[in-house]
């Protein structure tokens, strides 16, 4: 069912995007309060998490493949995707007038923040998958019981 497969992929992408927007907003808030408490931001600041999350979601294209990727090549692709996200967001920060990149803590703080969001998003997605696996296991047990019962019925006939 190709339709269902596309639907699943879209749901995964939207789930990742929403998760990234939330995590990025939290990280910006924490870093801002810790390191740049007095700063006043305009309404445009609300755009940043949306844009950064879009970059993070788009970068998952690197780990998408028609071939079955081995765990090793998947980890390599994940690392490349992290580097690309770091590169893209730091580049945006350097070009933007609103981000004080001249302060020594800003770029390392940004890089660490991106890493934290990357790790946290993977951890949360893993927990969601674990929940899905629990459901699959329950469905699998029911399916196996049903199949065994059906084959016993056939034997009796």
């Amino acid at each position, binding site marked *: 069912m190709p339709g269902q497969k596309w639907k699943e992929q879209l749901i995964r992408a939207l789930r990742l995007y929403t998760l990234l927007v939330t995590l990025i907003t939290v990280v910006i808030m924490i870093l801002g309060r810790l390191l740049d408490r007095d700063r006043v931001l305009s309404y445009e600041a609300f755009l940043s998490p949306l844009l950064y999350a879009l970059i993070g979601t788009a970068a998952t294209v690197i780990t998408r493949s028609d071939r079955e990727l081995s765990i090793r090549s998947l980890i390599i692709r994940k690392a490349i995707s992290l580097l690309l996200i770091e590169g893209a967001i730091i580049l945006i920060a350097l070009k933007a007038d609103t981000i004080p990149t001249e302060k020594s803590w800003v770029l390392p703080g940004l890089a660490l923040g991106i890493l934290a969001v990357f790790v946290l998003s993977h951890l949360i997605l893993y927990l969601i*998958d674990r929940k899905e696996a629990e459901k*699959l296991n329950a469905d*699998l047990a029911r*399916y*196996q019981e049903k199949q065994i019962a059906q084959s016993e019925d056939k034997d009796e006939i």
Partner: protein
Amino acid sequence: MKLETRKIPESEPEMVEIRYHWITDEIQEIISFVKSRQGQLSAVRDGQRFEVPVVDLFYAESVEDRLFLYTAADSYEIRMKLYELEEMLRNQSFLRVSKSMIVNLMKITSVRPALNGRFLAVLKNGEEIIISRKYVPSLKNILKGGES
């Protein structure tokens, strides 16, 4: 090859008779198909031919255009394409879980998450196989009583 079918009275048992000069690949394929319908697959291990009961099969994997069958402890080679076997075993709890593999759902002990939306199926003999993300929707669907 000439094909002949004949309607018989219900009192007579149904049967398939294959008349051959030599067992060619084509003949072997037909024999394998008929045996699979009877719950057995004709496969080769160490140069010897075995009849492998479908219920004992854990999974089948295609490696470089060769198809291998795996039971709890043994592996066999079968002269068939993966998609042909998949089609043959469609109604017998077998499901495609990756590009190169079909698995017997009755031999899965549990499923757990792997990286990137994939899942690992732990089989009853302790082996672990990857369920590719692309095939997870089919698995969910069949476990809920639908079709793959």
